[in-house]
Every structure is written in structure tokens, then in C-alpha cells.
């Protein structure tokens, strides 16, 4: 379980997170949604310990403020929105960085991870020559490599993904969400910051809707992604309709409430 209690984070005087409580359970995919600047990415950074903040955050019982980096790294892996790299690394070399020091370098895990994200055969390609979406998938392979088994010795492991699909085409969006879904189904935990409400509704077990540094409502997609909640959080009219095929919903934004000049 990942839990955060009374998180507060200020940049100067402005509170980015305000007394926020958040819990995510393993075996489920938790999506964090909300408008720009609502604190989604900051919440994720607080959960990874990247930004120091008031309050307690724990990952599977480990206090992230006091647990050494190597121990946290065995429990959770983090995918940033984008990862520019300094030197001409090959794709396979980037993925190998997820292995850590202890794992034998001769393992075939990096190759499997690249296959998993649909980049088999890209091993020797230079990271900087790949498109933004391909780079993002190489990084996902690195992250998968780090916590390959969703449950290790009875303890669930975690994927924390910051907008994992924002630079991907629709086919690869589905592929990446399916990887996250499978990870959760196998007993691991997934927290994903999402912009796409449709994908959130399709894949998430739990949705946390944020606005102004707090979680407005958290629960199943059915409860959270209602016309009223979305209209309130995003400040525009949103109509929720059931999808024409299969289960699920789609969301149609209809006119913003921002004043027109």
C-alpha cells in the first residue's frame, strides 16, 4: 500500500498541496486526474520523495523520508513525463540502467522489457534519435526492468507513472495502459497521473480527482467521473455518455466557462 497523510507542500507562500490524504492499494490501477496546476504531478513527486513536503508518505511500510534510495528502488519505480539524456546511450543501455548494481548484467531482462513495450529490435538504436513517444517507451522499459516481478517475496511492488501516455499515439496509448493494467492484475500497484479521462475510465480501478492542491473525490470511475464532478473540477461543461460498444464511458467537453474576450 502507498499512503500519504496530511501532505502539505508550499512553493514560497503558495500551497501546492494542502493537507492532502491519499491511499492507493496494490492490485489496482489508481489514476490521478485533474486540471492543469491542480497538483497531480506534485502529488506524484511527493509520493516518490522527489520534493520534500510536510506529512508522512510510506510505500509498503517504508517511510520514504528515511529509507535509503537502494531499498526504495527495489519497491517502486518511477516514470517521469519526459527524460532527456545527456550522452549518446543506446536504447538497451538506457533500459539496463533499471537493473541496478546487484543484478547480473548478462540477464536478458532488458531485451524482454523492450519487447514488452513493442520496441524489440531497437536495442542498438540511439536514444536521442528516437521520437518522443519511442523515448517514453524506452523509459517505460527501464522502469519495468527495475520492478519486473509485480510481487516480490510476498510484497507488492509499484509503478508510479507521470502522464505515461501523453506523448503516444492512440495505439501505443492502449498498449501502455494494458501493460499497467496487467501489472496491477498480477498483484502489483500502479499509480498513474492521467490527462485522458476516457483512458482513465477504461483502465483504472480507482480515480482520484484533484483541484487546487486537494483531492476533491476519490473512488471508482463510476462514482468519480460524473458530469457534476468533472464540470466542477475542470470549470467547463462535460457530458458523460456510455460508450457505443463494450463497457465504459466517453466524455465530451462542451464549452468552457472561461470568459471570452
Amino acid at each position: 500500500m502507498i499512503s500519504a497523510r496530511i501532505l502539505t507542500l508550499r512553493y514560497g507562500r503558495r500551497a501546492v498541496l494542502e493537507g492532502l490524504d491519499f491511499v492507493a492499494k496494490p492490485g489496482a490501477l489508481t489514476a490521478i486526474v485533474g486540471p492543469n496546476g491542480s497538483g497531480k504531478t506534485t502529488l506524484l513527486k511527493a509520493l516518490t520523495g522527489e520534493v520534500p513536503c510536510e506529512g508522512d508518505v510510506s510505500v509498503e511500510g517504508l517511510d520514504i523520508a528515511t529509507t535509503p534510495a537502494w531499498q526504495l528502488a527495489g519497491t517502486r519505480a518511477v516514470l517521469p513525463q519526459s527524460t532527456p539524456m545527456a550522452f549518446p546511450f543506446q536504447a538497451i543501455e538506457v533500459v539496463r540502467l533499471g537493473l541496478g548494481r546487484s543484478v547480473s548484467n548478462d540477464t536478458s531482462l532488458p531485451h524482454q522489457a523492450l519487447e514488452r513495450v513493442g520496441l524489440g529490435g531497437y536495442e542498438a538504436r540511439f536514444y536521442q534519435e528516437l521520437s518522443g513517444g519511442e523515448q517514453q517507451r524506452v523509459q517505460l522499459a527501464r522502469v519495468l526492468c527495475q520492478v519486473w516481478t509485480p510481487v516480490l517475496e510476498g510484497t507488492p511492488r509499484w509503478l508510479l507513472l507521470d502522464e505515461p501516455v501523453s506523448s503516444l499515439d492512440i495505439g501505443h496509448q492502449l498498449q501502455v495502459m494494458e501493460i499497467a493494467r496487467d501489472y496491477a492484475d498480477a498483484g502489483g500497484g500502479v499509480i498513474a497521473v492521467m490527462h485522458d479521462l476516457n483512458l482513465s475510465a477504461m483502465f483504472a480501478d480507482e480515480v482520484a480527482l484533484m483541484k487546487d492542491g486537494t483531492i476533491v473525490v476519490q473512488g471508482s470511475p463510476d462514482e468519480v467521473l460524473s458530469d457534476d464532478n468533472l464540470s466542477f473540477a475542470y470549470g467547463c461543461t462535460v457530458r458523460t455518455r456510455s460508450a457505443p460498444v463494450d463497457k465504459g464511458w466517453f466524455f465530451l467537453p462542451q464549452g468552457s466557462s472561461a470568459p471570452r474576450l
Partner: protein
Amino acid sequence: MAVAEQGTAVPVDRRTRARQMHGVLLVVLLAACITSLATGASGTSLWAALWAQVQGQQISLTEAVVLWEIRAPRTALAVCVGAALAVSGAVMQGLFRNPLADPGLLGVSAGAGLGALVAIVIGGALPLGLAAALGDALLPVMAFVGAWVSMTILYAIATRSGRTSVATMLLAGIALGALTGAVSGLLVFHADDLQLRELTFWSLGSLSGSSWEKVLIAGPLILVATWVTTTLAHGLNGLALGEASAHHIGIPVQRTKNIAILAVSAATGAAVAVSGGIGFVGIVVPHLLRLATGPDHHGLLINSALLGASMLLLADIVARFVVAPAELPIGIVTAVLGAPFFLWILLRRRTGVDL
């Protein structure tokens, strides 16, 4: 078609190539050492001397002095300094996540130089009886302190929230270099005649004053610093992802940074203390090796030490050879070869493939 072939090509493991490179570069270094011992203005032949030794004959005193008191320490010092500069460059580039970082370019050598100046000009006035306590080690120790202060300030300015801005890094380096230059100027202004003589000899930036004493001062420091940096390889690889991601994959980021800054300061400080400022080795050597075997620091750091030592030896041989029996300051040789190379790197950056 070519693209399709590239996509399915069997991946080349550059780690293997980097390991094979250790052996090749070691042979190159040995060859460079022998060449350095065998060449010089006096015309003394290494082979004749060795042959004489084998046959049990005595070689002349002049020959013995030329070989073992002039050429041998000079060769050893070139190896130490070249290795130190190249490894410092490689570690700084890893730390700043930028292939243009270099102790000479970013004012770290200038900081070490200021430390050395302080030792020469006002060393006696330092508190705690430092001068008396350290003796001959005062100059290298002060050079190390100067390099360390520069490195720490540079990193604090150039790196914000775990990412380094190239522009800030270069500008901060230039400003830091100018500031240390100005303070150094003030010290020179206040120096007396005897100190000025010492200063001039030191700042010539050459290996011409090599002695076994200098090798003993710089050698151990450089060896230890180089060995320490090889333990940082994994951390420096992780830092290529940025500080936050490095932490997420389990790297003790703060400790890695601290050790890297200390190691670079020690190696640069020792090199500057015994040879003045020699530029461009720290940029050229790691860059060439990255082209050949990739940016993985596991092989890169050791290969940098080996190739840096060979390159500086060759530059020194050129410096001794071109205007013999006089000799060029080695800094001129490395600049003439290194500066165009540096410009070439900058030009290549435009071609899309980033460094």
C-alpha cells in the same frame, strides 16, 4: 531498406568493446612511455644504455642522469597528469551531464591555480602554522582546496532542481575563471621578487621541471582519485537520467556528487600543482572514447585514464621535438591540437544527433 536492416541488426554490446579497449590502450601507453624515454634533446639512446646494462657495462654518469633523473620522472609525471586531467574531464562531464564540462574550461583549474598562488605568495601567513605543518605538500594541498571550492560553487550555481543548464554552466565557469584570475592577479601584484621567480616557473604550465619529488607528491593523490572515480561509474551512469531519476533507481545521489567533486578536485589540484594548467585533454579524451565505446562510465573512466596518459605523453614528445633543443610549453601543443577538436564537437552538435 537500410533502416529495416538497422532495426533488426544484432545489437552490438559496447561494454565488451570497452573492456577490449583496456588492453589496446595499455599497449599504446607502454609504447608511448618507451618512446618518451627514448627521445630527447641530448641524443642519449635508451637502447644503447639498456644494451650496456645487459652486457654488464657501466653507462656514463651523464647518460644515467638524462635517462633516470630527467626523462624517467618526466615520463611518469606526464602519465599521472594526463590520466588525472582526462579522468577529471570524464567525471565532470558525467556529473554535469554535459560533454563540454572540463576542469580547464570551467575555472576549476584556475581555482587550483589560485590555491597554488596562495601557497607560494602568502603561504607563510596562513593560520594554524599550515605552511610549517605541510611543508612541500602545502602547494598541492592548497591547489586541491582551490579546485574543490571552485567545483562546489560551480555545481551549486549551474545545477537547479537536478538538471544542469549548459548556458548557466558555461557562464558560471567563465565568471568563476575571471574572478579567480583577478584574485590571482592581485596576489601576483603583491608578490616579492623571489616569489615572482617561483610563480613564473610554476605557471609556465609545462612538464619541464619534472622531478621524482613531484611524481611522489602528485602520483599517489592521482592514483587514489582515479581509483575512487571507478567506484562512481554506476552512479554517474544513473545521473545521466537526471538527479531525480537517479535517486529513483537507487543511486545515493548526494553521496555520489560529493565523492565525484572531491575526486575531481584532488586529481585536478594535483595535476595543476605539478604542471600548471594544461587544457583540452579533459574534453578530447573522453569524447573520443564515447564515440568508440559509448558513454557507459564503467569502461569510460579507466580508458580515459589510459588514453589521457598516452595523449599527454605524445604531446610532451612533440613539445620536446618541434623546436629542439629548446622546447614548447606543453599547454601550447594540447591547445593547438585540442581547440580545433573542441570547435568540431560544437559544430557536430548541430547535426541533430546530440552528444
